[in-house]
């Protein structure tokens, strides 16, 4: 695993990895035992932003800490095997370390389901079966509050985005793009291919744990007849 440290102001550094898998492994290792003064870890597709309070943890010390994390992902495996959920390093009181896996009930009747299955050369029924069978994991959040990018080792597909994004995608739309699955937390424009819908509340700013999908959380989808 290679790892580059890039400057990001006087209170953060950006750690770059070669692949998303390396990001996930390193994120888990960093989140397992953050030193005092680490305020937040923000994973993305190839990077993790490490935010610190420089008065408690100088950036040079944070850099040393990041460099010393072993290159193998043993920490990740052992933590997953132990059933420990991911990140809880935030400076806030939000307790998100309790839920290890969430199950999201889906009505698979999305406008793009059949066409997307056709693009991938499978039947709609088979695409739905694979979507449910896959063990998903929230890799990172982007685009909007609570919009999780879900990845799975069991998911073989690369799904092209819509040529023209929809101006309005309804909240709860279950969608695919690239190697990712996602669910729209609220109505927004969007270019992902919609295969279903859920009643699950993805984002509730009034709740002490506002996001259903937080980095590291495991997710499974389950077909239901009616949302």
């Amino acid at each position, binding site marked *: 695993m290679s790892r580059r440290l890039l400057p990001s102001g006087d209170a953060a550094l950006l750690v770059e990895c070669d692949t998303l898998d390396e990001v996930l492994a390193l994120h888990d290792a960093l989140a397992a035992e953050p030193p005092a003064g680490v305020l937040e870890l923000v994973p993305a597709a190839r990077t993790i932003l490490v935010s610190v309070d420089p008065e408690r943890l100088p950036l040079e010390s944070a850099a040393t800490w990041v460099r010393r994390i072993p290159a193998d992902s043993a920490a990740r495996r052992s933590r997953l095997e132990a059933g420990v959920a991911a990140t809880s390093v935030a400076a806030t009181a939000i307790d998100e370390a309790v839920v290890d896996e969430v199950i999201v009930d889906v009505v698979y009747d999305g406008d793009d389901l059949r066409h997307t299955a056709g693009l991938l050369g499978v039947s709609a029924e088979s695409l739905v079966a694979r979507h449910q069978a896959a063990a998903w994991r929230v890799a990172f959040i982007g685009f909007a*509050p609570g919009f999780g990018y879900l990845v799975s080792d069991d998911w073989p597909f690369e799904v092209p985005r819509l040529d023209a994004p929809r101006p309005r995608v309804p909240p709860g739309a279950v969608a695919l793009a690239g190697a990712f699955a996602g669910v729209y937390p609220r109505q927004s424009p969007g270019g992902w291919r919609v295969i279903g819908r859920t009643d699950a509340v993805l984002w509730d700013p009034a709740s002490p744990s506002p996001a259903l999908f937080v980095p590291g959380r495991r997710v499974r989808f389950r077909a239901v007849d009616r949302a």
Partner: protein
Amino acid sequence: MVVVEPGPLALVEDLGRPGLARLGVAGSGALDRSALRLANRLVGNPDGAAGLEILMGGFRARFDDEAWLAVTGAWGPVALDDRPAPPYTALRASAGAMLEIGTAERGVRYVLAVRGGFDEPVTLGSRSRDTLAAIGPGPVAAGAALSIGARPEASVPLLDRAAAFPPPAGAVTLALMPGPRAEWFTDAARTTLFDAEWRLSGQADRVGARLTGPALERRVPGELASEATVPGSIQVAGDGRPTILLADRPVTGGYPVIAIVAPASLDAVAQLRPGQEVRFRHA
């Protein structure tokens, strides 16, 4: 306090909601943070009490009960009951008094603090409005009644007038720190960043401040996978023009960040007027 005229945009802001970027939530909060801190100190509030960020002025509000208030940030005419009142000063409004904040002459964002702070609902630990994510209290509408919190323990400081440093009218120089993707740009672009005369474009809000000037040329072509940004990140879009990302920015961005405005310079960005000249120096 009843808002009679909110002006173009009046938002409740405190020091924001840090630490939630991994959930997709930006820090938000007052764009000119030192103006909020100063206004709060003038009326004896804790630094992070919620104030009103008032864009450009044209603001009028009535106090039903007596209150202490202070106006900082942008520089322009302030009047209490039609009598001119000094800005950057603790002012006592009697019951029924009308506060008027006129069009800003310097800067663009006034901060109004009241003793006790605005007691609006808290979302994710903050009373701030995040304009991009639509979190927190909505823009203040004409006729809105804003409740004021309990009087803080601290008294109104005896020294009730702050040395006023109104936002400058001329060129503003901002200190820059290296950005994570400086290497994605040509040497010429990195030199141009510091040599050129930039100007604030008309496209500037709480999400980002876009600058006009020469195009910054990329050395590395292609797409950048989205990555987390910090406030002050100077993101360069496909056309080569820089945008300074501000408090309500999307927490991840897909354009390379060439440099980062030092936190000490970031409040000055909040007060830039469209067309105003901006220069960069090394922090």
